[in-house]
């Protein structure tokens, strides 16, 4: 089994465990079992090479994490659950792409580079998310609305610009 496959399974397990623990500690057993079911099904889907399942599973993980944050469950567990889900989702697609390689291709080199890249991205995401968790600023609703709209528009334009000129 390749390193990326092991890390993918680990990511799904860690994500499931973090979210399960968050809900379980808050005595929300129904939600905890739901998260556990989604996580186990994801593991099963990856084992059986049912690739389409990864995207709904990521959506479910992020939704569970967001709901958990809304009902004031531990932010560390919820963020960890979402980031681990993101890692699992990325590696699920990467392992699928690796299967298209011919036996002679340097898959281990590609795997090494991808693992390094995705680890840095995940760690950076976690660090920034962790940092922002400590920042508390009270702003009026109108300003919040304006900021969100600005963020949405800005993000859209940035994504569009990067899609067009990102490689240059």
């Amino acid at each position, binding site marked *: 089994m390749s390193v990326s496959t092991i890390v993918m399974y680990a990511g799904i397990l860690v994500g499931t465990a973090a979210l399960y623990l968050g809900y379980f500690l808050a005595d929300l057993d129904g939600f905890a079992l739901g998260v556990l079911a989604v996580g186990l099904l994801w593991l099963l889907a990856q084992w059986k090479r049912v690739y389409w399942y990864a995207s709904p599973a990521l959506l479910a993980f*992020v939704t569970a994490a*967001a709901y958990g944050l809304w009902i004031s469950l531990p932010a560390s567990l919820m963020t960890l659950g979402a980031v681990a889900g993101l890692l699992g989702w990325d590696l699920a697609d990467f392992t699928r792409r*690796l299967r298209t390689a011919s036996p002679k291709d340097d898959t281990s080199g590609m795997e090494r580079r991808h693992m390094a890249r995705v680890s840095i991205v995940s760690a950076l995401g976690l660090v920034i998310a962790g940092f922002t968790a400590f920042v508390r600023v009270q702003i009026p609703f109108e300003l919040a*609305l304006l900021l969100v709209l600005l963020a949405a528009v800005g*993000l859209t334009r940035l994504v569009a610009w990067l899609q067009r000129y990102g490689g240059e």
Partner: protein
Amino acid sequence: MSRTSLLSLIVYALLLAALFTLHGELLTLAIPLVVYLLAGLLRAPEEVKLGVTRHLSAERMSPNGGVEVTVTVTNLGRALEEALIEDIVPPQLTVQDGSSRGLVSLSRGETYTLTYTVAGPRGGYAFEALRVKVNDALALTGTEVQFKVVNQLFVFPALTHLRHIPIRPRRTRVYAGSIPARAGGVGAEFFGVRSYQPGDSPRAINWHASARHEELFSNEFQQERVSDVGIVLDGRLRTNAFGRGHSLFEYSVMAAAALADAFLAQGNRVGLLLYANYLGWTFPAYGKVQRERILQALARAQTGESQVFSALEHIPTRLFPPESQIVVVSPLTQDDVAPLVRLRGLGYQVMAISPDPISFEMSYLRDDPSVQMAARVVRMERALFLQKLQRSGVQTLNWNVTQPFDQVMARQLGRPPGWLRAVGR
């Protein structure tokens, strides 16, 4: 939904959720996703510039052979994080060894070589393009490009080498060959005696005739020349296709290839007519180039059904020089007798090579008394119409396809060995 769309959707949903619930912590959840999204998009692939070549170890092969395909891809543009290179192999060919695709990272100027072996059934195949799918490092954006690189591969029918095929068309061409020309001159077989003419070799003088008539006579030998041979390959579906997907056509093609090879080796001018749902005409010519042309036409030959060409009566006789040799390769049905007899009547020397459909069908049908009875009946019918053809002067060869074609040809059309001729058998 693309990966970028999914992530963007989640981020926007989190932004909206944070706004409507007035819960800022939801924004922190969006941050890792935004970082991931931007990290992928920052290194999105730009225009893909590749130099692509494909080399086939052979452009012609036999059905059991394999051809090694080598594809070389050189990155002439910026580094590519992840490129899935896939050579588009014609669907009828199978990759026997190696892989027709590869996943690579290509830095600027780097070359990647893809090597695999293909094999397949008889046919003419075109390798037309190479598909390259390039992704950013996180596969959020991708570009698919096709590079046109054309190569051709012919899988020729299995070729059996035939020895001398005895044909005697009425008209021959002027060049020396191996077909008796019904005219006196230089040759090997005795043709007749004529008055001695100055310049005749003393070895040609027939001393017995000269002594009897007190005048010198010379022996004349039969000239041997080349001839025009037209091979008609019957590709009609109704004569070639049988139940459960079985077909005699491959045998007919094999026979046509062997005949064309043998006639061309004898120095004849050979043309090929594929008679299927269309007329595929390979113009008559001599030599190795013509052999190649005919084999290519045979590699591409397919069966077909057409109302116009459902019977052999539409064989265009204008294509064949008058009084030349026509060889029809066909399983034959009763309806085909009249058109062949008509060809004979027009002065053509006709030879019918007929792969036997009855023994072919019996080879895969169950051994049942009713099947046996039916086979006996159709075998008698077939024997009758083949006999009718022979009586009309059509040289007929009924080929049981379970036996090798060259052996059947040698047995039925070849010269008997000398000792057998000596004992008068």
